[in-house]
């Protein structure tokens, strides 16, 4: 109830919690064994792997620090006993050795505990680990100094040397977990590297064989045939798996439109080329993304063939061009009850504070949709934009 031991045990054994608790209580009543057992489990029971809830458990008692305190007490006892036997023999073995060894053992235990048990505990972690290790090192260090250079150093016996050696060994053991951990991490790193190498090997092989074959299939099957589309989708998938495995899962505008293009290619006889320039912080969920998707869908549905999507993002603005080579249309000609372009592209952009224009593509073929969102154009981009105005015969709405 207090620490979740019963519950944990119950989960482990598959018994009801009540039964486990009752057993503990009965055992405790009879001999106190239950209490001991309870503490034993409490100390050593592994944490439940954190699931969706925010149950990052912390053991309520700081075992590491407890061990440090015990070690310090033992060390104090050893010092006290050593001092008191001034008249007989400095640092008598029979009396000093047990607390001294206890101090060493407890110190080493504390060090191991913080490294291997407390480390995964988010509330403690590295910082506690360092502090505890420093504390026990100080405890043992004080002992070493008092044994070798303390007030009774003049009467140094052979035991003092033995104690000092034992203590130094203890300090070495205190730091053993660090080495052990480094060793483990080294192993993990090596494994990771081997995996990475293997991966690039596979990638190279697939690149030279499968991707080439997929390209060949696309070539032989004709640009917009079913087979070519499937091959292209496959190629895209394989390529992203091979080379973009570390890409952020977070979806920005460019990634989103690329995915959308891939989806369109599967559904319509179309080939969508997405070109992205610049970095844009635009979110995939934004209005411009929705409008761009609509424009791409229109292009795929009504025009087919080759569709070019160009995204240019700067710190302040983002522009998307969707261009197809289909029969083309002017917004004015579309019946009033067809809301596709007017509402979902132009209206949407205007409401979001951007602008959208739908016009005839270059050379009088196809349609070009231009979406803009953000600050006015910089000088560098202006000439192209104004040149474009001249070819537009569709409705133009500005924000």
């Amino acid at each position, binding site marked *: 109830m207090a620490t979740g031991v019963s519950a944990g045990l119950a989960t482990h054994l598959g018994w009801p919690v009540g039964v486990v608790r009752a057993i503990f209580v009965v055992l405790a009543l009879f001999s106190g064994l239950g209490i001991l057992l309870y503490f034993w489990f409490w100390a050593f029971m592994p944490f439940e792997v954190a699931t969706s809830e925010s149950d990052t458990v912390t053991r309520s008692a700081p075992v590491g620090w407890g061990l440090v305190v015990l070690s310090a007490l033992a060390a104090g006892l050893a010092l006290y006993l050593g001092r008191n036997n001034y008249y007989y023999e400095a640092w008598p073995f029979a009396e000093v050795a047990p607390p001294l060894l206890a101090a060493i053992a407890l110190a080493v235990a504390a060090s191991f505990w913080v490294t291997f048990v407390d480390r995964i505990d988010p509330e403690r972690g590295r910082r506690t680990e360092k502090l505890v290790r420093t504390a026990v090192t100080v405890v043992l260090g004080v002992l070493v100094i008092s044994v070798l250079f303390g007030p009774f150093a003049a009467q140094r016996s052979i035991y003092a040397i033995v104690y000092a050696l034992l203590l130094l060994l203890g300090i070495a053991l205190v730091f053993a977990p660090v080495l052990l951990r480094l060793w483990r991490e080294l192993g993990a790193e090596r494994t990771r590297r081997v995996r990475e190498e293997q991966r690039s090997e596979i990638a190279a092989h697939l690149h030279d064989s499968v991707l080439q074959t997929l390209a*060949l299939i696309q070539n032989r099957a004709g640009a917009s045939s079913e087979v070519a589309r499937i091959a292209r989708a496959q190629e895209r998938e394989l390529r992203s798996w091979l080379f973009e495995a570390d890409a952020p899962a977070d979806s920005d505008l460019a990634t989103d439109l690329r995915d959308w293009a891939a989806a369109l290619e599967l559904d319509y006889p179309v080939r969508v080329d997405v070109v992205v320039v610049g970095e844009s912080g635009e979110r995939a969920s934004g209005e411009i993304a929705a409008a761009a998707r609509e424009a791409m869908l229109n292009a795929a549905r009504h025009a087919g063939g080759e569709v070019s999507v160009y995204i240019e993002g700067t710190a302040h603005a983002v522009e998307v061009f969707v261009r197809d080579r289909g029969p083309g249309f002017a917004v004015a000609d579309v019946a009033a009850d067809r809301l596709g372009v007017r509402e979902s592209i132009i209206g949407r952009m205007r409401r979001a504070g951007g602008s959208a224009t739908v016009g005839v593509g270059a050379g009088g073929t196809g349609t070009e949709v231009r979406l803009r969102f953000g600050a006015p154009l910089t000088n560098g981009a202006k000439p192209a934009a104004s040149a474009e105005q001249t070819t537009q015969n569709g409705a133009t709405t500005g924000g």
Partner: protein
Amino acid sequence: MGQQQVAERSVRVVIVDDHSIFRSGLKADLDASIEVVGEAQDVESAVRVVTATAPDVVLLDVHLPDGAVAADAATAVAAAPSGGAAVIGQAAPLVPGTRFLALSVSDSAEDVVGVIRAGARGYITKGSSGIDVSRAVHAVAGGDAVFSPRLAGFVLDAFGVVSGEVASTDEELDRLSVREQEVMRLIARGYAYKEVASELFISPKTVETHVSAVLRKLQLSSRHELTAWATARKLL
């Protein structure tokens, strides 16, 4: 597109690709004005064939097995220079009249920038039709550059166009002039050269000049982003 194909004189071409199916397929697809005078399947044979036949254009696969260092092929994707770039590096000095057109599985910059910087005059994806390839071959044979939307996009990125950098003189290698930026933007938007020309009220020949100028900058620029980008991907 096909009927107005230049019938002036046939262009002599060597195809370099390690897949024989692809070579024969491409050979069958190329139009009559293109004469395939040789084929090769790896770096070594490519250099030999190209120097022996001195063709007008070499259609060059970007990823080629490097006969001698086959053991190293394991890391070929990450490691470089890719086979295609090696062929250009070895053969180009011996046959100055020959132009190289890269063929790649895709037009992603990863595949292409290395060969472009090695000296290819352009590239075309392997998925392109025979007509497109033929047209590209003629363009390259005529001294023009072949750019795709994606390469144009990469150029815009690499030359800092988005952040508003403009070349002050024509000689500057690390930035694009205003006109070049406009041309690149339109190509990135999927415009053909002719459409770019009508859009900007200039002649197609002028567009080609701009594109060639950009290609030259792409090849020669020591722009930090470009080289850093390429070295990060081990393309140089």
